[in-house]
């Protein structure tokens, strides 16, 4: 039964570990904003290559040269809100085709915007 001493100490240390993790999470700002990450994680991750014209991915065999990943992920419920209380609005998914990002046009456009 004297093992109880050891057991208790060890379990307290483990529990302390969780407490430390909790404090660490607060310090690194995890609880500063609890709402935006829920929306942010539903965005698609796309890798954009500004030099290539993108081809829509149809077959896996044609995939080898394309540097861009495409995933069709229907967005289920992304909240759109105008008040402190949020409500869910369903959105639709759309496949990206024919995107031609071009650094030159964007620079021109930015400088010629009437302000």
């Amino acid at each position: 039964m004297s093992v109880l001493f050891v057991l208790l100490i060890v379990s307290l240390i483990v529990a302390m570990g969780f407490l430390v993790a909790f404090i660490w999470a607060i310090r690194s700002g995890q609880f500063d904003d609890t709402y935006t990450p829920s929306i942010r994680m539903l965005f698609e991750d796309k890798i954009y290559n500004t030099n290539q014209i993108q081809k829509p991915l149809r077959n896996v065999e044609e995939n080898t040269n394309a540097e861009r990943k495409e995933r069709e992920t229907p967005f289920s419920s992304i909240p759109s809100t105008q008040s402190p209380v949020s409500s869910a609005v369903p959105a639709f998914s759309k496949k990206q085709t024919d995107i031609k990002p071009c650094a030159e046009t964007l620079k021109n456009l930015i400088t010629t915007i009437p302000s």
Partner: protein
Amino acid sequence: MAQAASAHPSTHVTCFHCGEDCGSSAIQLAEKPFCCEGCKTVYEILNENGFSDYYNIAQTPGIKMREKKSAGVLSYLEHSEVVAKLVDFQDSKMTRITFTIPQIHCASCIWLLENLYRLKPGITSVKVNFLKREAALAFSNELSLRSVVELLASIGYEPEINLQSLEGKTEKKASKGFYYQLGIAGFCFGNIMLLSFPEYLSFDRYIEPAFSRFFSYLNLLLALPVFFYCSSYYFKAAFSGLRARMLDINVPVALGIFVLFSRSAYEILTQTGAGYFDSMAGLVFFLLIGKWFQNKTYDSLSFDRDYKSYFPVAATRKENDKEVSIPLNEIKISDVLLIRNGELVPADAELLKGEGQMDYSFVTGESNSTKINTGEKIFAGGRQVGGAIEIRVLKNTSQSYLTQLWNQEVFAKEHQRKFASLINKFSRYFTPAALSVAVAAGAYWLVVDSSIAINVFTSVLIVVCACALALATPFTLGNALRILGKNSFYLKDTSVIESLAQTDEVVFDKTGTLTNAQHQKAHFVGELTPSEIQLARSLVYHSSHPLSRQIYDSLEKTELLPIESFKEYSGKGIEGVFENNKIMLGSESFVKGLHVRKETEATGTRSWLSINGQVKGYFDFNNHYREGLGEVIKDLEADYKISLITGDSEGEKEFLKTYFNENNLHFNQSPRDKLSFIGFLENHGKKVLMIGDGLNDAGALKQSSTGISITENVNNFSPSCDAILDAKAFNELPKLIRFAKGSMTLLKIALGISLLYNVFALSFAVQGMFTPIVAAILMPLSSITVTAFGIASTTLLAKKIKLKI
């Protein structure tokens, strides 16, 4: 690129970007309709750069940009001192800044802003905090701050930069410390309870003394952080209360915690008992949860806005014919400033050059703009409607007539209100009573059997002071606060519920409070044929002036005709041509082409209409009163005396007499008059509830016991107040006040329940039978009962009054 709509049937074409009605002059691009150049431009920028996802994530996520800013407006961002005050961090390579962007309203906005680094090389990262409507940017110094702000403005997300932004952000470090306390208290509470179980369940004889000593020392160790760190708030509050000779509720709570700790520590160190650390940790933990529950903040709202949130950062000064942008605090007396159309006058000044047309609606409550002649005085806070004017400054911004109103002490009011709260009034009698019972019991036992005298003395103190009394207010009123928030009525803190429940009289402002400034109806005085109505409506569609929009909304929906040669003369009117018909709309002198006497102009805002030189009549602008106003007033009149004070003239008196008692109508009240009116009532012991909306009500709102600011959009500016009411909840106002009153009754019942527990536990304590196990049962039981009652009863009350929960 605009295609004249020739024979389109009247379909409702909505803009792909912002969702507004395009009418019949939709601009087409890539088979998508847009309502204006602005929306189309933003679409072009986004589409060219692979940002089409913006339109996929949320429907019509854009916002129509209404005003065209002139180029010089942002030049103040080039001042290094302004930049230094605005940025969070800046070194030789990069800059970090946090912008407030009220236009953030959906997931697309977040997506677009966080992907901004792809749009403009130089921007490193953007992180959005949706609830606070903030975006934290990091960009390299190859970009100037001005270019970043202009970029954001070009896509429709112009940051809000006003004088308040220069003051720096209030640090949120305090709340982090609170979470640490909560976490540590919870951790220690759980473990102490676990370690105390053998003590409860055993019968002392069966447990090895080595174990029981081990457990009790562990308990002592775990209780140390709870006592020294987690309950520090209560000790500090109790000391400051005592120093100010105020016996608020923190005093008995601090006393209870102290006695609990010292008695338990003594018992454990002398091995005469197991101590009450579980009760102590439990109490502190529950208290902290109550504090957290009660302090739910609304991130994007601010109850403490003063004039600084309203004024811009810089003004344009004319120095020897050069226009220089200077920060507001550098404005000196006799400076000559240039004020453009739509800009705010930053300081009391006199008009030097140009046609002054001042919109003081937010400041003095007058809904019509006033014409200012050269040499006349202009007050700070007025907005110029018309061409650019030059003014000479008479007083500094902070010395102006309006900003003087803000120099009232608001801190004193809040402090007073907190102290006068029910629970603090209660504790003023409670604490001495508790102490005397403890002393009496102790004295009794000192005589009869002195060995348990100390035991009884401390037990009584523990029972009476460290009890659920302090939990009643946070949970009951905290839940009430949350329910009110769900009903679009946002209170600053729980003490506002108490002052709301004590109201005797209700005072309303008129402009913006009882009237909905954005939905005014225009009605035409004169005769118009349907084709003429169509011409007028087609003309006003092209103007973004608020009066034009009101005319547009008030006329019947017709097909819009294409107008050529549209011209807008700011401050005068608009004109256009359709199929050789010349249409003119505007001020009387503009339309009639002659100089009109001032008296005719002063009888109210009128927009005259002429077609082909023939004057057809004018549009008169009625105030649009909020729907349900009659019921609200009738409901409130049953319980309170209602008055109306307004800066407007007596023009609406006849209409208002149907709702209010004639003696309670006060017109032509300046902001100072409003303040003294409320002050007079308050000094005579009345508790006044003031409902207003603009800067002109600021002083009155502060002076009253409870000040409610009503607003169409809760993210917009509203003056310093105790509560913010969303305009759409205006009809619920009587119900909300009734709910506040009911919550106070429930609070009193909750206090009663807690007192019952006290009395019950006292019976154990005075007999010296208040053992740790009794404490361990009674204290959590009373805490949970009071908490559950507080939350459940207020929720049921809300259901009964038919509020949303």
